[in-house]
């Protein structure tokens, strides 16, 4: 679907904006919404990265530092995907 390909850079940019701009308390709901978006726009690497973030968020043993590290890693994957899709 051409529409999906055309929209992928904007969807990734929005995902980065939402995940980087929310508080730790908001992060579970934001990650939940973002995972559905990037997956539906057929961005498997980005989706896997956000799902990993959700896994860390859902792990009762995770500390705030663990979550922030996972968020940082997820954002680096999204930015790399964003850069790749922009230059395609």
């Amino acid at each position, binding site marked *: *679907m051409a*529409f*999906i390909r055309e*929209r992928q850079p*904007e*969807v990734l940019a*929005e995902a980065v904006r939402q995940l980087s701009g929310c508080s730790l308390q908001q992060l579970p*709901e934001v990650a*939940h*919404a973002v*995972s*559905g*978006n*990037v*997956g*539906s*726009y057929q961005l498997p690497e980005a*989706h896997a990265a956000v799902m990993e973030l959700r896994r860390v968020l859902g792990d009762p043993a995770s500390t705030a530092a663990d979550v922030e590290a996972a968020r940082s890693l997820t954002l680096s994957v999204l930015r790399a995907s964003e850069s790749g899709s922009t230059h395609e």
Partner: protein
Amino acid sequence: MSETVLVIDDQADVRQLIGVALKEAGYRIVEADSGPTGIDAYHANAPDLILLDIGLGSMDGLEVCRQLRALTTTPIIFLTSRTDEVDELVGFAAGGDDYITKPFSPKVVVARVNSLMRRNQRGDENSKTVYTAGPITLDTDAHEVQLDGEPLELTRTEFDLLLALMENPSRVVTREALLQRVWGDWYGDSHVVEVHISRLRNKVKKAGGPSVGVAVRGVGYKLGLDG
């Protein structure tokens, strides 16, 4: 005139993706980004089907569904990102007719919408027929079910399942036949039959009625009515 689908989701990208896919399939799309605006959009547009996200903000999708169900039997398909919500969505009091998990393929959305729309059309085209079994009366023309003369509120899916069983009161209807009859050519998880039958059975029981949709192990379901 095109059939109208109301898409209620707080994520603009999701609404846009669904909108493009369904417009290509010939549907008219109305969008809402929250529960309250979705209910307003229902009143303003009288949609033929509603796609409803569970994870809405101030008023969640389940509450929106409850409010819509007080107004209409219009088919509702839930959108959810949480697989752990699925049993709750299809099995209990939520009132939806189907669900789609995110991430989704636009083709799956179109297939599910087409399937539910065809079910509605088949219902509309049926000639007026009233089925009676024990204390239950089902009127396909009025789309009403009564238990001992009192109205019994069912979702579209529960109504269709009960109709399939009442059309065949003396035999077991296989799970595959119910899937085909109610969900059309959607080839999804047959678990949905079990949970919707369970919900139908609970509603009839709660209203003081007999046991309906009795499971016949390994085969399917029969109407029942054995108290």
